[in-house]
Protein backbone atom coordinates (compact mmCIF):
# COMPACT_ATOMS: atom_id res chain seq x y z
CA UNK A 1 0.00 0.00 0.00
CA UNK A 2 2.68 2.58 0.93
CA UNK A 3 4.41 1.61 -2.31
CA UNK A 4 1.32 2.55 -4.29
CA UNK A 5 1.02 5.73 -2.32
CA UNK A 6 4.63 6.60 -3.11
CA UNK A 7 4.10 5.86 -6.78
CA UNK A 8 0.96 8.00 -6.73
CA UNK A 9 2.80 10.89 -5.06
CA UNK A 10 5.66 10.56 -7.51
CA UNK A 11 3.21 10.71 -10.42
CA UNK A 12 1.49 13.80 -9.07
CA UNK A 13 4.80 15.57 -8.48
CA UNK A 14 6.18 14.74 -11.89
CA UNK A 15 2.93 15.70 -13.61
CA UNK A 16 2.80 19.05 -11.87
CA UNK A 17 6.46 19.57 -12.73
CA UNK A 18 5.62 19.01 -16.40
CA UNK A 19 2.69 21.38 -16.37
CA UNK A 20 4.74 23.87 -14.31
CA UNK A 21 7.33 23.81 -17.08
CA UNK A 22 4.67 24.91 -19.56
CA UNK A 23 3.27 27.72 -17.47
CA UNK A 24 3.52 30.76 -19.71
CA UNK A 25 3.66 34.25 -18.30
CA UNK A 26 3.80 37.69 -19.88
CA UNK A 27 7.39 38.83 -20.27
CA UNK A 28 8.61 42.32 -21.14
CA UNK A 29 11.90 44.02 -21.88
CA UNK A 30 13.35 45.81 -18.87
CA UNK A 31 12.85 49.18 -20.59
CA UNK A 32 9.24 48.77 -19.41
CA UNK A 33 8.63 49.44 -15.73
CA UNK A 34 5.22 47.73 -15.45
CA UNK A 35 5.06 44.63 -13.24
CA UNK A 36 1.27 44.29 -13.23
CA UNK A 37 -1.35 44.82 -15.93
CA UNK A 38 -5.09 44.24 -16.27
CA UNK A 39 -6.23 41.33 -18.42
CA UNK A 40 -8.16 43.80 -20.56
CA UNK A 41 -5.02 45.80 -21.32
CA UNK A 42 -3.10 42.58 -22.06
CA UNK A 43 -5.82 41.63 -24.58
CA UNK A 44 -5.54 45.05 -26.22
CA UNK A 45 -1.76 44.69 -26.40
CA UNK A 46 -1.74 41.21 -27.92
CA UNK A 47 -4.74 42.12 -30.09
CA UNK A 48 -2.46 44.83 -31.62
CA UNK A 49 -4.89 47.60 -30.68
CA UNK A 50 -2.84 49.34 -27.98
CA UNK A 51 0.28 50.79 -29.59
CA UNK A 52 1.86 52.82 -26.77
CA UNK A 53 3.08 52.07 -23.26
CA UNK A 54 1.78 54.46 -20.58
CA UNK A 55 5.13 56.33 -20.84
CA UNK A 56 4.46 56.95 -24.55
CA UNK A 57 7.06 54.54 -25.96
CA UNK A 58 6.18 52.14 -28.79
CA UNK A 59 4.87 48.66 -27.99
CA UNK A 60 6.55 45.76 -29.86
CA UNK A 61 4.55 42.55 -29.65
CA UNK A 62 6.16 39.13 -30.17
CA UNK A 63 4.26 35.85 -30.46
CA UNK A 64 5.10 32.24 -31.29
CA UNK A 65 3.57 30.65 -34.44
CA UNK A 66 -0.16 29.82 -34.18
CA UNK A 67 0.59 26.12 -34.15
CA UNK A 68 2.98 26.30 -31.15
CA UNK A 69 1.34 24.65 -28.11
CA UNK A 70 2.80 27.40 -25.89
CA UNK A 71 0.97 30.03 -27.97
CA UNK A 72 -2.26 28.11 -27.59
CA UNK A 73 -1.95 27.76 -23.81
CA UNK A 74 -0.85 31.39 -23.33
CA UNK A 75 -3.80 32.77 -25.29
CA UNK A 76 -6.32 30.49 -23.59
CA UNK A 77 -4.99 30.62 -20.05
CA UNK A 78 -3.54 34.12 -19.65
CA UNK A 79 -5.56 36.19 -22.12
CA UNK A 80 -8.57 33.88 -21.67
CA UNK A 81 -9.66 34.17 -25.29
CA UNK A 82 -9.78 31.67 -28.16
CA UNK A 83 -6.65 31.59 -30.35
CA UNK A 84 -8.82 31.67 -33.51
CA UNK A 85 -10.43 34.93 -32.30
CA UNK A 86 -7.01 36.51 -31.85
CA UNK A 87 -5.92 35.39 -35.33
CA UNK A 88 -9.16 36.75 -36.81
CA UNK A 89 -8.61 40.11 -35.10
CA UNK A 90 -5.06 40.38 -36.53
CA UNK A 91 -6.23 39.39 -40.02
CA UNK A 92 -9.07 41.92 -40.03
CA UNK A 93 -6.61 44.69 -39.15
CA UNK A 94 -3.82 43.60 -41.51
CA UNK A 95 -6.10 43.26 -44.55
CA UNK A 96 -8.16 46.40 -43.94
CA UNK A 97 -5.09 48.52 -43.16
CA UNK A 98 -6.31 49.48 -39.71
CA UNK A 99 -3.49 47.71 -37.88
CA UNK A 100 -0.44 45.49 -38.12
CA UNK A 101 0.45 41.91 -37.27
CA UNK A 102 2.66 41.03 -34.30
CA UNK A 103 6.24 39.93 -35.00
CA UNK A 104 6.80 36.20 -34.88
CA UNK A 105 9.47 34.46 -32.84
CA UNK A 106 10.38 31.01 -34.12
CA UNK A 107 10.94 29.34 -30.73
CA UNK A 108 11.06 29.99 -26.98
CA UNK A 109 14.80 30.70 -27.23
CA UNK A 110 14.23 33.10 -30.13
CA UNK A 111 11.43 34.81 -28.16
CA UNK A 112 13.76 35.21 -25.18
CA UNK A 113 16.51 36.72 -27.35
CA UNK A 114 14.09 39.14 -29.05
CA UNK A 115 12.48 40.29 -25.81
CA UNK A 116 15.95 40.84 -24.31
CA UNK A 117 17.23 42.88 -27.24
CA UNK A 118 14.12 44.97 -28.18
CA UNK A 119 13.19 48.07 -26.23
CA UNK A 120 9.44 48.20 -25.50
CA UNK A 121 9.03 44.49 -26.31
CA UNK A 122 6.29 42.29 -24.87
CA UNK A 123 5.79 38.55 -25.34
CA UNK A 124 5.44 35.44 -23.23
CA UNK A 125 7.85 32.84 -21.83
CA UNK A 126 7.84 29.89 -19.46
CA UNK A 127 8.28 31.39 -15.99
CA UNK A 128 11.63 29.70 -15.34
CA UNK A 129 13.15 31.23 -18.49
CA UNK A 130 12.88 34.72 -17.00
CA UNK A 131 16.09 35.61 -15.17
CA UNK A 132 15.38 39.31 -14.56
CA UNK A 133 18.61 40.44 -16.22
CA UNK A 134 17.02 41.94 -19.35
CA UNK A 135 13.46 40.64 -19.13
CA UNK A 136 10.95 40.63 -16.33
CA UNK A 137 7.58 39.10 -15.74
CA UNK A 138 4.28 41.01 -15.77
CA UNK A 139 1.50 39.72 -13.58
CA UNK A 140 -2.04 39.84 -14.96
CA UNK A 141 -4.90 40.83 -12.67
Amino acid sequence: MPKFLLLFLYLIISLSAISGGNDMVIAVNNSITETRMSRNFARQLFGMKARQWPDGSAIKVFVLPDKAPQHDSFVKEILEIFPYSLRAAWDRQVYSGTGQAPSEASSIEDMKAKLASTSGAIGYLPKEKIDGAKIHMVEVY
Partner: protein
Amino acid sequence: MMRLLIAYLGLLFSTICSAPAWALDFNDGAIQIHGFMSQGMVNTSGNNFLGKTNDSISYDFREIAVNASYRALPQLLFAGQVISHTAGESDNGDPNIDYAFMDWTALSGEWGRAGVRLGRLKNAYGLYNSTRDVTFTRPSILLPQSIYFERTRKLSVSSDGINLYADYINDWGTLSAEVALGYPLNDKASDVALLGNNIRGSFEPAFTQLYQVKYESPTGRYVFATTVVNLKEDYKPAADRDLNAGSFYFAPVILSAQYNAENWTLTGEYAFRPSSLKGFGPFLPDTSKDGESYYLQGTYRVLPKLEMLVRYDAEFNDRNDRNGNAYAAAKKGNLNFTQYTKDWTLGLRYDVTPAVMLRAEYHNIEGTAILPTLDNPLGISSYDKNWDMWLLLASYRF
Protein backbone atom coordinates in the same frame (compact mmCIF):
# COMPACT_ATOMS: atom_id res chain seq x y z
CA MET B 1 0.77 18.99 -72.47
CA MET B 2 -2.10 18.60 -69.99
CA ARG B 3 -0.04 16.18 -67.90
CA LEU B 4 2.85 18.61 -67.88
CA LEU B 5 0.55 21.37 -66.71
CA ILE B 6 -0.91 19.20 -63.94
CA ALA B 7 2.58 18.14 -62.84
CA TYR B 8 3.64 21.79 -62.82
CA LEU B 9 0.60 22.88 -60.80
CA GLY B 10 1.14 19.99 -58.39
CA LEU B 11 4.75 21.02 -57.89
CA LEU B 12 3.77 24.67 -57.42
CA PHE B 13 1.11 23.71 -54.90
CA SER B 14 3.43 21.47 -52.87
CA THR B 15 6.09 24.21 -52.86
CA ILE B 16 3.58 26.75 -51.58
CA CYS B 17 2.30 24.33 -48.95
CA SER B 18 5.76 23.52 -47.63
CA ALA B 19 6.86 27.16 -47.53
CA PRO B 20 6.49 28.83 -44.15
CA ALA B 21 3.88 31.56 -43.76
CA TRP B 22 6.19 34.43 -44.53
CA ALA B 23 5.58 38.10 -44.37
CA LEU B 24 8.02 40.85 -45.09
CA ASP B 25 9.03 42.87 -42.07
CA PHE B 26 11.45 45.78 -42.21
CA ASN B 27 12.68 48.24 -39.69
CA ASP B 28 11.85 46.00 -36.69
CA GLY B 29 8.34 45.26 -37.95
CA ALA B 30 7.44 48.96 -38.43
CA ILE B 31 7.09 48.28 -42.17
CA GLN B 32 5.07 45.20 -43.08
CA ILE B 33 4.07 43.74 -46.41
CA HIS B 34 1.27 41.20 -46.64
CA GLY B 35 -0.95 39.87 -49.38
CA PHE B 36 -3.20 37.11 -50.61
CA MET B 37 -4.34 35.40 -53.76
CA SER B 38 -7.21 33.08 -54.42
CA GLN B 39 -8.58 31.24 -57.42
CA GLY B 40 -12.11 29.95 -57.59
CA MET B 41 -14.11 27.63 -59.82
CA VAL B 42 -17.84 28.16 -60.21
CA ASN B 43 -20.52 25.96 -61.76
CA THR B 44 -24.28 26.51 -61.78
CA SER B 45 -27.23 24.41 -62.91
CA GLY B 46 -28.99 27.57 -64.14
CA ASN B 47 -28.22 31.30 -64.45
CA ASN B 48 -24.69 32.72 -64.53
CA PHE B 49 -22.84 33.83 -61.42
CA LEU B 50 -19.24 35.09 -61.65
CA GLY B 51 -18.71 34.30 -65.31
CA LYS B 52 -20.25 31.82 -67.69
CA THR B 53 -21.19 29.17 -65.15
CA ASN B 54 -24.47 27.76 -66.46
CA ASP B 55 -23.62 24.14 -67.31
CA SER B 56 -19.97 25.08 -67.61
CA ILE B 57 -17.15 25.95 -65.23
CA SER B 58 -15.96 29.52 -64.82
CA TYR B 59 -12.48 30.30 -63.57
CA ASP B 60 -13.19 34.05 -63.68
CA PHE B 61 -13.20 34.37 -59.92
CA ARG B 62 -9.82 35.53 -58.74
CA GLU B 63 -8.53 37.84 -56.02
CA ILE B 64 -4.93 39.04 -55.79
CA ALA B 65 -3.79 41.76 -53.42
CA VAL B 66 -0.64 43.16 -51.84
CA ASN B 67 -0.62 45.61 -48.97
CA ALA B 68 2.00 47.62 -47.13
CA SER B 69 1.81 49.41 -43.82
CA TYR B 70 4.27 51.70 -42.09
CA ARG B 71 4.05 52.68 -38.45
CA ALA B 72 5.93 55.97 -38.54
CA LEU B 73 5.12 56.75 -34.91
CA PRO B 74 3.27 54.69 -32.28
CA GLN B 75 0.22 56.85 -32.98
CA LEU B 76 0.68 57.24 -36.76
CA LEU B 77 0.11 54.48 -39.32
CA PHE B 78 0.17 54.61 -43.12
CA ALA B 79 -1.46 51.73 -44.99
CA GLY B 80 -2.32 50.86 -48.59
CA GLN B 81 -3.49 47.89 -50.63
CA VAL B 82 -3.64 47.22 -54.37
CA ILE B 83 -6.17 44.63 -55.47
CA SER B 84 -7.01 42.81 -58.66
CA HIS B 85 -10.49 41.34 -58.39
CA THR B 86 -11.82 39.25 -61.26
CA ALA B 87 -15.51 38.39 -61.13
CA GLY B 88 -17.14 37.14 -64.32
CA GLU B 89 -18.34 39.98 -66.54
CA SER B 90 -18.60 42.39 -63.58
CA ASP B 91 -14.92 42.90 -62.91
CA ASN B 92 -12.08 42.21 -65.35
CA GLY B 93 -9.33 42.21 -62.73
CA ASP B 94 -7.71 45.56 -63.53
CA PRO B 95 -5.63 46.41 -60.46
CA ASN B 96 -6.93 49.29 -58.40
CA ILE B 97 -6.29 50.93 -55.06
CA ASP B 98 -8.42 49.15 -52.49
CA TYR B 99 -7.40 51.44 -49.65
CA ALA B 100 -4.71 54.04 -48.98
CA PHE B 101 -4.87 56.18 -45.87
CA MET B 102 -3.19 57.62 -42.84
CA ASP B 103 -4.42 56.64 -39.40
CA TRP B 104 -3.73 58.95 -36.50
CA THR B 105 -4.60 57.60 -33.05
CA ALA B 106 -5.00 60.94 -31.32
CA LEU B 107 -5.77 59.55 -27.88
CA SER B 108 -5.00 56.19 -26.35
CA GLY B 109 -4.64 54.53 -23.01
CA GLU B 110 -5.82 51.60 -20.97
CA TRP B 111 -9.37 52.98 -21.45
CA GLY B 112 -9.16 52.49 -25.23
CA ARG B 113 -8.37 54.79 -28.13
CA ALA B 114 -9.78 57.44 -30.43
CA GLY B 115 -8.51 58.63 -33.77
CA VAL B 116 -9.06 59.64 -37.34
CA ARG B 117 -8.33 58.00 -40.70
CA LEU B 118 -7.99 60.00 -43.89
CA GLY B 119 -7.85 58.74 -47.48
CA ARG B 120 -9.43 55.80 -49.29
CA LEU B 121 -11.00 53.60 -46.60
CA LYS B 122 -12.81 50.28 -46.47
CA ASN B 123 -16.51 50.59 -45.68
CA ALA B 124 -16.87 48.80 -42.36
CA TYR B 125 -20.50 47.68 -42.54
CA GLY B 126 -21.82 44.51 -40.94
CA LEU B 127 -19.35 41.98 -39.59
CA TYR B 128 -17.42 41.17 -42.76
CA ASN B 129 -17.33 44.02 -45.26
CA SER B 130 -13.99 45.59 -44.32
CA THR B 131 -12.17 42.41 -45.40
CA ARG B 132 -14.77 40.98 -47.78
CA ASP B 133 -12.20 40.11 -50.46
CA VAL B 134 -9.90 38.16 -48.15
CA THR B 135 -11.06 34.55 -48.20
CA PHE B 136 -9.20 33.78 -44.95
CA THR B 137 -11.40 36.25 -43.08
CA ARG B 138 -14.68 35.18 -44.69
CA PRO B 139 -16.86 32.40 -43.31
CA SER B 140 -17.48 31.03 -46.81
CA ILE B 141 -16.38 31.35 -50.46
CA LEU B 142 -19.30 33.69 -51.14
CA LEU B 143 -20.42 35.99 -48.38
CA PRO B 144 -24.17 35.93 -47.71
CA GLN B 145 -25.44 37.70 -50.82
CA SER B 146 -28.45 39.16 -49.07
CA ILE B 147 -26.17 41.66 -47.32
CA TYR B 148 -22.79 41.51 -49.12
CA PHE B 149 -23.99 41.79 -52.72
CA GLU B 150 -21.60 40.76 -55.50
CA ARG B 151 -23.80 42.58 -58.02
CA THR B 152 -23.03 45.98 -56.49
CA ARG B 153 -19.67 45.07 -54.96
CA LYS B 154 -17.68 48.08 -56.10
CA LEU B 155 -20.14 50.53 -54.57
CA SER B 156 -19.87 48.84 -51.18
CA VAL B 157 -16.11 48.18 -50.95
CA SER B 158 -14.40 51.47 -50.17
CA SER B 159 -14.87 55.23 -50.06
CA ASP B 160 -12.68 58.32 -50.35
CA GLY B 161 -13.09 60.40 -47.23
CA ILE B 162 -12.64 60.59 -43.51
CA ASN B 163 -13.30 58.15 -40.70
CA LEU B 164 -13.55 58.98 -37.00
CA TYR B 165 -13.26 56.06 -34.60
CA ALA B 166 -13.21 55.33 -30.88
CA ASP B 167 -12.90 52.17 -28.76
CA TYR B 168 -13.89 52.27 -25.10
CA ILE B 169 -12.68 49.31 -23.05
CA ASN B 170 -14.13 48.32 -19.73
CA ASP B 171 -14.61 45.22 -17.57
CA TRP B 172 -17.87 44.55 -19.35
CA GLY B 173 -16.27 44.59 -22.80
CA THR B 174 -15.35 46.88 -25.66
CA LEU B 175 -17.66 49.47 -27.16
CA SER B 176 -16.56 50.82 -30.56
CA ALA B 177 -18.01 53.59 -32.63
CA GLU B 178 -17.15 54.66 -36.14
CA VAL B 179 -18.34 57.46 -38.41
CA ALA B 180 -17.25 57.36 -42.06
CA LEU B 181 -17.97 60.28 -44.36
CA GLY B 182 -17.03 60.32 -48.02
CA TYR B 183 -17.62 59.27 -51.59
CA PRO B 184 -17.95 55.56 -52.48
CA LEU B 185 -16.34 54.11 -55.60
CA ASN B 186 -18.44 52.88 -58.48
CA ASP B 187 -18.36 50.81 -61.68
CA LYS B 188 -20.49 49.65 -64.59
CA ALA B 189 -21.68 46.51 -62.79
CA SER B 190 -23.17 48.58 -59.95
CA ASP B 191 -24.79 50.97 -62.47
CA VAL B 192 -26.56 48.25 -64.41
CA ALA B 193 -27.72 46.69 -61.14
CA LEU B 194 -29.76 49.86 -60.66
CA LEU B 195 -31.04 50.65 -64.17
CA GLY B 196 -30.53 47.44 -66.13
CA ASN B 197 -28.34 46.44 -69.09
CA ASN B 198 -29.76 49.17 -71.36
CA ILE B 199 -28.48 51.99 -69.16
CA ARG B 200 -27.00 54.80 -71.29
CA GLY B 201 -25.56 57.25 -68.80
CA SER B 202 -23.76 56.49 -65.56
CA PHE B 203 -24.04 57.11 -61.84
CA GLU B 204 -21.76 59.29 -59.78
CA PRO B 205 -21.64 58.61 -56.02
CA ALA B 206 -22.57 61.62 -53.87
CA PHE B 207 -21.66 62.37 -50.26
CA THR B 208 -22.35 59.25 -48.20
CA GLN B 209 -22.33 58.56 -44.46
CA LEU B 210 -21.75 55.34 -42.55
CA TYR B 211 -22.20 54.91 -38.79
CA GLN B 212 -21.36 51.78 -36.85
CA VAL B 213 -21.61 50.95 -33.16
CA LYS B 214 -20.20 47.64 -32.01
CA TYR B 215 -20.06 45.80 -28.71
CA GLU B 216 -17.70 42.93 -28.00
CA SER B 217 -17.70 41.03 -24.70
CA PRO B 218 -14.30 40.83 -22.91
CA THR B 219 -13.46 37.36 -24.24
CA GLY B 220 -14.96 38.00 -27.67
CA ARG B 221 -17.74 35.46 -27.10
CA TYR B 222 -20.49 37.92 -27.91
CA VAL B 223 -20.37 40.48 -30.70
CA PHE B 224 -23.24 42.85 -31.51
CA ALA B 225 -23.18 45.62 -34.10
CA THR B 226 -25.50 48.13 -35.69
CA THR B 227 -24.61 49.84 -38.97
CA VAL B 228 -26.53 52.66 -40.59
CA VAL B 229 -25.64 53.86 -44.10
CA ASN B 230 -26.97 56.82 -46.00
CA LEU B 231 -25.90 56.55 -49.63
CA LYS B 232 -26.79 58.70 -52.63
CA GLU B 233 -25.81 58.43 -56.30
CA ASP B 234 -26.55 61.01 -58.96
CA TYR B 235 -27.34 59.95 -62.51
CA LYS B 236 -25.37 61.60 -65.33
CA PRO B 237 -27.56 61.15 -68.44
CA ALA B 238 -26.04 60.38 -71.82
CA ALA B 239 -26.30 63.53 -73.95
CA ASP B 240 -29.07 62.44 -76.32
CA ARG B 241 -32.65 61.64 -75.27
CA ASP B 242 -31.81 59.81 -72.06
CA LEU B 243 -33.52 59.78 -68.68
CA ASN B 244 -33.39 62.95 -66.60
CA ALA B 245 -30.63 63.52 -64.07
CA GLY B 246 -32.27 61.61 -61.20
CA SER B 247 -30.82 60.15 -58.03
CA PHE B 248 -30.64 56.81 -56.28
CA TYR B 249 -31.06 56.77 -52.50
CA PHE B 250 -30.13 53.83 -50.31
CA ALA B 251 -30.33 53.89 -46.51
CA PRO B 252 -29.86 50.40 -45.03
CA VAL B 253 -29.78 49.56 -41.33
CA ILE B 254 -27.85 46.39 -40.53
CA LEU B 255 -28.05 44.51 -37.22
CA SER B 256 -25.35 41.92 -36.55
CA ALA B 257 -24.89 39.33 -33.81
CA GLN B 258 -22.34 36.62 -33.24
CA TYR B 259 -21.65 34.02 -30.57
CA ASN B 260 -18.20 32.41 -30.48
CA ALA B 261 -17.59 29.14 -28.65
CA GLU B 262 -14.37 27.14 -28.70
CA ASN B 263 -15.42 24.87 -31.57
CA TRP B 264 -18.38 26.63 -33.12
CA THR B 265 -19.65 30.05 -34.05
CA LEU B 266 -23.20 31.21 -34.62
CA THR B 267 -23.70 34.36 -36.71
CA GLY B 268 -26.79 36.23 -37.80
CA GLU B 269 -27.34 39.52 -39.56
CA TYR B 270 -30.49 41.37 -40.52
CA ALA B 271 -30.80 44.31 -42.90
CA PHE B 272 -33.67 46.67 -43.54
CA ARG B 273 -32.93 48.29 -46.92
CA PRO B 274 -35.08 51.22 -48.02
CA SER B 275 -34.13 52.51 -51.48
CA SER B 276 -35.62 54.87 -54.04
CA LEU B 277 -35.12 56.23 -57.55
CA LYS B 278 -36.26 59.84 -57.95
CA GLY B 279 -36.24 62.52 -60.62
CA PHE B 280 -35.59 60.39 -63.73
CA GLY B 281 -38.46 61.92 -65.67
CA PRO B 282 -41.57 60.45 -67.37
CA PHE B 283 -39.90 57.26 -68.61
CA LEU B 284 -38.95 56.15 -65.10
CA PRO B 285 -41.53 57.26 -62.52
CA ASP B 286 -40.29 57.76 -58.98
CA THR B 287 -40.22 54.47 -57.10
CA SER B 288 -39.26 53.43 -53.63
CA LYS B 289 -39.28 50.13 -51.79
CA ASP B 290 -38.08 48.63 -48.57
CA GLY B 291 -35.87 45.63 -49.14
CA GLU B 292 -35.17 43.14 -46.39
CA SER B 293 -32.35 40.63 -45.84
CA TYR B 294 -31.25 38.19 -43.20
CA TYR B 295 -29.14 35.11 -42.70
CA LEU B 296 -28.35 32.68 -39.95
CA GLN B 297 -25.07 30.83 -40.14
CA GLY B 298 -23.36 28.16 -38.08
CA THR B 299 -19.74 27.13 -38.40
CA TYR B 300 -18.29 24.14 -36.62
CA ARG B 301 -14.57 23.42 -36.30
CA VAL B 302 -14.47 19.63 -36.51
CA LEU B 303 -10.67 19.73 -36.28
CA PRO B 304 -8.42 22.76 -35.92
CA LYS B 305 -7.83 22.56 -39.69
CA LEU B 306 -11.32 21.57 -40.79
CA GLU B 307 -14.42 23.73 -40.58
CA MET B 308 -17.99 23.07 -41.71
CA LEU B 309 -20.60 25.70 -42.48
CA VAL B 310 -24.36 25.71 -42.86
CA ARG B 311 -26.34 28.85 -43.64
CA TYR B 312 -29.77 30.03 -44.63
CA ASP B 313 -29.73 33.35 -46.44
CA ALA B 314 -32.81 35.23 -47.62
CA GLU B 315 -33.25 38.48 -49.54
CA PHE B 316 -36.46 40.28 -50.53
CA ASN B 317 -36.44 43.31 -52.82
CA ASP B 318 -39.71 44.51 -51.29
CA ARG B 319 -40.66 43.42 -47.79
CA ASN B 320 -44.31 44.20 -48.56
CA ASP B 321 -44.21 41.85 -51.57
CA ARG B 322 -41.94 39.04 -50.44
CA ASN B 323 -43.07 36.49 -53.04
CA GLY B 324 -42.96 39.09 -55.83
CA ASN B 325 -46.58 38.41 -56.86
CA ALA B 326 -47.65 42.06 -56.79
CA TYR B 327 -44.59 42.93 -58.88
CA ALA B 328 -45.40 40.20 -61.40
CA ALA B 329 -49.04 41.32 -61.64
CA ALA B 330 -48.11 44.97 -62.20
CA LYS B 331 -46.59 44.52 -65.65
CA LYS B 332 -46.58 41.88 -68.36
CA GLY B 333 -43.21 40.13 -68.51
CA ASN B 334 -42.39 40.70 -64.86
CA LEU B 335 -41.45 37.48 -63.07
CA ASN B 336 -42.07 37.10 -59.34
CA PHE B 337 -38.92 35.09 -58.57
CA THR B 338 -36.64 37.92 -59.71
CA GLN B 339 -37.71 39.80 -56.56
CA TYR B 340 -36.21 37.52 -53.93
CA THR B 341 -33.50 34.93 -53.25
CA LYS B 342 -33.49 32.11 -50.72
CA ASP B 343 -30.21 30.32 -50.45
CA TRP B 344 -29.28 27.22 -48.40
CA THR B 345 -25.49 26.91 -48.24
CA LEU B 346 -23.20 24.10 -47.13
CA GLY B 347 -19.45 24.73 -46.96
CA LEU B 348 -16.18 23.07 -46.05
CA ARG B 349 -12.89 24.77 -45.22
CA TYR B 350 -9.59 22.96 -44.94
CA ASP B 351 -6.49 24.84 -43.78
CA VAL B 352 -3.63 22.90 -45.34
CA THR B 353 -1.14 25.19 -43.61
CA PRO B 354 -1.67 28.56 -41.91
CA ALA B 355 -0.97 30.12 -45.32
CA VAL B 356 -2.85 27.79 -47.66
CA MET B 357 -6.56 27.09 -47.60
CA LEU B 358 -8.91 24.97 -49.70
CA ARG B 359 -12.66 25.38 -49.77
CA ALA B 360 -15.74 23.77 -51.28
CA GLU B 361 -19.28 25.07 -51.22
CA TYR B 362 -22.77 24.16 -52.36
CA HIS B 363 -25.74 26.52 -52.73
CA ASN B 364 -29.34 25.53 -53.28
CA ILE B 365 -31.09 28.66 -54.48
CA GLU B 366 -34.62 29.79 -55.25
CA GLY B 367 -35.00 33.20 -56.89
CA THR B 368 -32.66 35.46 -58.85
CA ALA B 369 -32.54 38.82 -57.03
CA ILE B 370 -28.82 38.41 -56.27
CA LEU B 371 -27.76 37.73 -59.89
CA PRO B 372 -25.06 40.02 -61.32
CA THR B 373 -26.78 41.68 -64.29
CA LEU B 374 -23.73 41.71 -66.59
CA ASP B 375 -23.25 37.95 -66.27
CA ASN B 376 -26.76 37.41 -67.66
CA PRO B 377 -26.98 39.58 -70.78
CA LEU B 378 -30.08 37.84 -72.17
CA GLY B 379 -32.16 39.37 -69.40
CA ILE B 380 -34.89 37.98 -67.21
CA SER B 381 -36.51 35.84 -69.91
CA SER B 382 -33.46 33.57 -69.58
CA TYR B 383 -33.55 33.37 -65.76
CA ASP B 384 -34.11 30.10 -63.92
CA LYS B 385 -36.13 30.16 -60.71
CA ASN B 386 -34.48 27.19 -59.01
CA TRP B 387 -30.76 26.67 -59.39
CA ASP B 388 -27.74 25.11 -57.71
CA MET B 389 -24.23 26.47 -57.45
CA TRP B 390 -20.98 24.63 -56.75
CA LEU B 391 -17.77 26.42 -55.87
CA LEU B 392 -14.18 25.38 -55.24
CA LEU B 393 -11.47 27.74 -54.10
CA ALA B 394 -7.76 27.66 -53.28
CA SER B 395 -6.22 30.53 -51.40
CA TYR B 396 -2.77 31.60 -50.30
CA ARG B 397 -1.73 34.46 -48.07
CA PHE B 398 1.38 35.92 -46.54
